[in-house]
């Protein structure tokens, strides 16, 4: 290593020795270092995330209580699922979650449009609108359980103001899922709002003013000029919302425990219940596998699009 190199190294902040023996490490480090960088993270991810997916699929083909030797069942767990009314309810509730959650992207966009003004105090308002997003789902669950309480909750108060009796949302079989979904929408809308605020911030001024020069205003400008530019953000918002809807577990565990009578359960909760409380690990794994396969469709959709964008960018 010559003197100039050493000077420049120091400028870079380097403090490497100025004389190094050309051992096997030095001659191979250009490819060995990156490999070593990849190994710990990849190993951990494979061990704890990837391999267990395969193991769960495998366990789903067995009868297993978590202690004894698993007994091979083939597809029997899945056959049993088809005739299990609990499963049907959970699956139906997952669909309800999915459909109702689709309110989040447009609602988030609406709030983002409202907040996208440069007025004094707006920055604070924006931050306060974000708050539900950083709360733990457990926190949101407790907050809404209090809010919904039929005798003294805020909601009951509103009903009383109109001389009516507040509904017991969380103990009503027909309403309970909707009540939990509305609570879960709170942080989800905030999330979509953040995404759309960022999207609005990145609109092309040129295209906007061109649209304005052409006489487009209000709704027409929004529909034909703004919305097309928000497509990428919108896609991400929809994907995150879908995943969020299918993943829901915490709020149900905290607000209803799947009740009353299993009416608010979803696949994620039913799986937990079957495995932890009934020691039916094989059956639980089968429920998890169904949920995983449903989500795999969306994951594949997202990956395809992401990789295509990557290729275009490259």
């Amino acid at each position: 290593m010559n003197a100039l190199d050493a000077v420049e190294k120091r400028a870079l902040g380097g403090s490497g020795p100025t004389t190094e023996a050309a051992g096997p490490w030095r001659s191979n480090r250009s490819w060995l270092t990156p490999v070593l960088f990849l190994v710990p993270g990849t190993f951990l991810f494979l061990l704890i995330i990837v391999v267990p997916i395969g193991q769960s699929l495998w366990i789903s083909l067995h009868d297993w209580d978590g202690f004894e030797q698993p007994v091979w069942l083939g597809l029997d767990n899945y056959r049993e699922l088809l005739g299990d009314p609990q499963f049907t309810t959970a699956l139906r509730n997952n669909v309800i979650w999915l459909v109702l959650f689709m309110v989040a992207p447009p609602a988030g966009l609406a709030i983002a449009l409202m907040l996208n003004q440069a007025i004094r105090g707006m920055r604070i308002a924006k931050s306060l609108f974000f708050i539900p997003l950083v709360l733990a789902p457990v926190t949101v669950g407790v907050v809404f359980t209090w809010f919904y309480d039929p005798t003294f909750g805020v909601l009951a108060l509103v009903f009383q103001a109109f001389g009516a009796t507040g509904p017991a949302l969380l103990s009503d079989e027909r309403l309970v899922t909707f009540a939990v979904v509305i609570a879960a929408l709170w942080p989800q809308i905030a999330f979509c709002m953040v995404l759309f605020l960022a999207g609005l911030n990145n609109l092309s001024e040129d295209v906007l003013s061109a649209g304005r020069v052409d006489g487009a205003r209000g709704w027409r400008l929004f529909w034909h000029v703004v919305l097309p530019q928000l497509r990428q953000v919108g896609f991400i918002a929809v994907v995150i919302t879908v995943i969020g809807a299918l993943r829901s577990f915490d709020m149900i565990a905290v607000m209803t425990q799947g009740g009353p009578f299993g009416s608010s359960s979803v696949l994620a909760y039913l799986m937990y219940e079957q495995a932890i409380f009934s020691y039916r690990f094989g059956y639980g794994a089968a429920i998890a596998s169904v949920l995983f396969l449903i989500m795999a469709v969306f994951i594949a959709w997202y990956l395809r699009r992401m990789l295509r964008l990557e290729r275009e960018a490259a």
Partner: protein
Amino acid sequence: MFPRPLPDDASAQRFLYMSLVAVVLALWLLPLLAIMATSFRTMDDLMRGNYWGWPERIAWLDNYRDVFTQTPMARFFLNSLVITLPSVAFVLTLSTLMGFVLSRYRFPGATLLFAVFVAGNFVPHQILMIPVRDMMLRAGVYDTFFALILFHTAFQTGFATLFMRNFIAALPQELFEAARAEGASPFQVLAHVVVPLIRPALAALAILTFTFIWNDYFWAIVLTQSDAVKPVTAGLANLRGQYVSAWNLVAAATIVVAVPPVVMFFLMQKHFVAGLTMGAVKG
């Protein structure tokens, strides 16, 4: 800008607009405000059914003091820190190493590896539950901090790697060429070129990861059993079961659980939002 900005001189119009925003905001935060108000109420009030009337006495800090002295919440709070802080440090380290390699080197299988990390982020946790729980039991670490730290580190590394890879890929190519021309080793490039430039990304990632791990509930109940290990989220859920009528106490505990992520968010708002929206906006 869309919608069209309100003109600077229309002060009446601006005031009206801001008032409307304030009303919507109050409605938006109503559930949270309600629980906050309850956290300042006395037990006597609740016993007499005075839930929303003017409090007989405002218990400014009594409930909060009780949460820390009468319930195990102080313990749970500490547990959460013991779980969250090392996990965040590990995630940042691993994802920086991997993000660097995935963004700067071409090798067979790079895209596949990357796709696996991204997909791994989105899987439902339940598909991992039985094997991961079993693994921790067999390894003898079930119901220890280590089990939760290990899981969170592995899981968050998926998202974090995607994040760091995109960030490092956006750094100017010339920097790397210059470093290579000088014969810098990969480690030197990472330590002296990359790390100083990715501080904002590390900040964003640190607070996002902190929030995700702090807020976790599922793994808290799947991998722990004893109060000595349980984090705040599981603690709060327990507390609500135990103190069914002491809503003033539950309310205060709820606020206690919410404070760290909210404070982190307000301190590092810019980074937090930049982190969340990364990759969503451009492209």
